[in-house]
């Protein structure tokens, strides 16, 4: 009887652990391995002719919030965004702009109205489209998953780090608290 009871307890415990794990996965909480891999990083793209190689996170935030209009070489900055709901966009707004989607939308609506926002973002439906846009426009800046990058565009460093570097700060899924 005791043996049967202990087996039942063990089964319930295992089931509970599996259920919690699945819940976490559905909620977008990455496992440790995924969040550390380069594929899980967000790459910031610029045109291959753009002389900028590195931006700090605050500079990057300014760019994506439309507070900078031109690159150092004089080219007009064109923001390339993915459509709302895509994980890369969520990650950028969360990690770079440190906003929610609604805050971000409101910022641009308000900024365009007041004239504080100098750049209107272009909305692309796919990472491939975003990459091609950056390839075609010398002043464009966009973002895609690190695994979607190819040689037609240039990935810039953020705070001196590239996707795949250990301390790279831009991850598609939020960091799980240690």
């Amino acid at each position, binding site marked *: 009887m005791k043996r049967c009871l202990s087996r039942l307890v063990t089964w319930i415990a295992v089931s509970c652990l599996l259920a919690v794990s699945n819940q976490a996965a559905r909620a977008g909480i990455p496992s440790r391995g995924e969040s550390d891999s380069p594929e899980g990083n967000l790459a910031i793209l610029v045109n291959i002719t753009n002389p900028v190689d590195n931006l700090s996170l605050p500079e990057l935030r300014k760019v994506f919030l439309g507070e900078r209009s031109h690159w150092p070489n004089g080219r*007009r900055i*064109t923001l*390339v965004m993915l459509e709302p709901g895509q994980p890369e966009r969520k990650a950028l707004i969360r990690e770079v702009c440190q906003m929610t989607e609604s805050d971000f939308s409101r910022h641009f609506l308000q900024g365009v109205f007041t004239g504080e926002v100098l750049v*209107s973002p*272009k*909305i*692309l*439906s*796919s990472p491939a*489209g975003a990459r*091609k*846009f950056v390839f*075609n*426009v*010398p*002043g*464009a800046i966009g973002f895609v998953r690190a695994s979607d990058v190819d040689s037609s565009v240039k990935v810039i460093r953020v705070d001196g780090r590239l996707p795949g570097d250990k301390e790279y700060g831009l991850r598609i899924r939020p960091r799980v608290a240690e």
Partner: protein
Amino acid sequence: MVAQFSRYPSALLLLIVFGVEVGVGMFVIRDVRMAGIEAQQMYARSVLGLRQIGELQYETQETRRSTLYALTTNDSNLQVEYADQSREADRRVSGGITAYLQQARMPNEINVGHALQHDWSAYLAVRDEVLASILEGSAKEAVDMDLKGGVPSFERVREDLEEIKRLYDTQASEQLARVSASSRRSIVRLIGVVCFTLIFATFSVWAIQKSRMLGTVQLAKLQMDFVASISHELRTPLAVIRSAADNIADGVVEGKDQLAKYGSVIRNQSRQMTDLVNQILLFVSTREGRSHYILQPLEVPDVVNSVVENTAGLMREAGFEVEQHVEPNLPRVMGDLFALSRCLQNLLVNATKYGGQTRWVGIRAFREKTGHLGHGEVSISVQDRGIGIDKSDLPHIFEPFYRSPSVRDAQIHGTGLGLPLARSIAEAMGGRLTVESKLGAGSVFTLHLPSARDASRPVASSALGRDVVARK
């Protein structure tokens, strides 16, 4: 040439016509092949080239068209698609230009190819800026840029492509002209050679007919001459015999002595007629290959003596002195005694006919040092110091029925068969008969015979005799 035609006229004519036709055929085939190759080259270089340039024109327009389509929408996704299409088209254009430059050979082709490459690069630089402006949302800026830079550079590209088309057109025209010239050349050659063949064939037929006609006329003339000679040769002794017979019948002849004299005349004239008829029959049988000789080793002095004895009466009557010289220790010769006697007798008779006033005949037998028949050759020559033979007559004296005009004019009787018969006999014995003569100084006829030591060699025989006569 006429003689050659008369020998194998049809075969020769056919061979020549066949050769000419083969030559014509080869010319025509070569020209047709050249025309075909040139036509293929024309197709490969001009028609295919024009098609490639047409495709290039389409792709350049596609590049520009796709770029401008991006202006028609504000949707960035669509604009990116149009930009993609434009870049795909421009890659095809660049590939086409590279292929054109690789196959360009002429300097003007290479120059215009490089110009096109340069102008296309210039247009693409503008196109990239225009595309960037469109994607950035600056449509006005894009249009301005296209009007200022894109349109002129694209126009230059279009002109370059038109220039290439003109080059291809020019090349096609030149190649077409070459093909036409080649065809014309072929036709002219064909007509020329056909005309030549016709003329040549006509001339050949005419020459053959003429040769045959001449041969026939000549043969008829010789035969007429022969008949006349024979008639004359027969009529003279017949007249003598008839006259003698008339005298005897009319009782003009008195006494035994006179009767014997008349009998002798009749016998001599009859013998002369018999000899003549025998000679004709012998010639005919030799010519038809019916002569049969019995070859055996003969002593040369016996042969010479036999001939001299046979002709002693004739020589005596004609008042000729015969000088005879036979080298001692001569080898025996292979031959037929009767035939050799006949041969030498003919030569001696001729010597009396044409010996002139010196009335001298020399007959000499000697060993030949370097003869045609080898070291065993023995020669028997009959020499006179008479009228000699003209150089122009020498090649003909051994032809049957031939008689020199000068001899005929001099009323020297003969049949024209003696020398041909003598030569036939010499050749049938495995020997030969030669002549050396100088007009007004006399002639030397030499009979060359193989010695009996060379009897193992296939020399005189009845079969060979027939063969030799037949060849004659």
